[in-house]
């Protein structure tokens, strides 16, 4: 009997751990909870840097989640909440920084690199296509790539 109880307690242990890990916030309804999860996943924890506010267990993430939650309860829009955090923690807290001159390189840099690479490839291929018929296969020494 005692053995069975012990087993039961052991099996229930993970359930307690789960309840501890999640910050209990009294959401009014499911929609609000979904909105909160979505918003906190778009925000970055300033302390841990590679975690979202939703994922982080740092004390500051805990406090900021509470702040976000309270602002939602007070009827603030997502943009207002983001502006509030940006004013204090800079754009660093946004996982998706706004498109503006200082972030153009970030947003368009990869596309520009892709276009440049594409142009280089096209130029090379065309040049070789022009050269290929002129080069007699017999003279090919093999070291001309």
């Amino acid at each position, binding site marked *: 009997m005692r053995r069975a109880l012990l087993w039961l307690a052991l099996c229930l242990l993970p359930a307690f751990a789960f309840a501890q890990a999640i910050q209990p916030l009294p959401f009014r309804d499911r929609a609000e909870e979904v909105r909160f999860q979505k918003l906190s996943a778009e925000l970055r924890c300033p302390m841990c*840097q590679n975690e979202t506010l939703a994922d982080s267990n740092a004390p*500051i993430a805990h*406090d*900021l989640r509470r*702040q976000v939650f309270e602002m939602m309860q007070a009827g603030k829009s997502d943009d207002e909440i983001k502006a509030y955090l940006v*004013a*204090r923690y800079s754009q660093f807290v946004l996982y998706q920084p706004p498109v503006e001159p200082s972030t153009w390189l970030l947003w368009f840099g990869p596309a520009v690199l892709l276009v440049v690479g594409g142009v280089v490839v096209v130029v090379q291929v065309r040049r070789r296509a022009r050269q290929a018929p002129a080069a007699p296969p017999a003279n090919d020494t093999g070291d001309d790539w």
Partner: protein
Amino acid sequence: MSRLLPLFGFLLLVALFGFGIWWNTGHDPHDIASPLIDQPAPAFALPVLGEPERMVDKASLLGKPYLLNVFASWCIECVHEHPILMTRAKELGVPLIGFNYKDEPADATAWLAKHGNPFDTIVADRDGRAGIDFGVYAAPETFLIDAKGVIRYKRIGPITPDVLDNEIRPAIAALVKDAP
């Protein structure tokens, strides 16, 4: 010429990655530029540590510049920073206000009894709400706030002798020059 192209590409990548390494060793990724620099410090009203009935607010500190040092008894780096506050804070010529961040008053008092108390006044932000307004996300952090209540400088991380001599002192000197 086209034979050298791979070498050229390779060197370009070396330069790019080399820059990345250089850049990451040269700057602290935790050092997020605060948007609050040259902005008015947020309004706050916090109880004095150990005297919960006495409140200190932003207005009562106006009139002269001061350093606001965010510390906590749970903060490991604060222990490393503390000796320099103990020995050299007085020579800076501005009040040093302690900002006890998310701490139990009893723990903070015990911590100060053990390590010494370099602060002129200590305010207690137990739940960290005022800390959010200051953009605090860790401790220690240090703010220099001028006589008009504007944040002029912020240090994230412990104050080292180097930071004290090369950043904080010049920042205070600049304030004195600004307001004769």
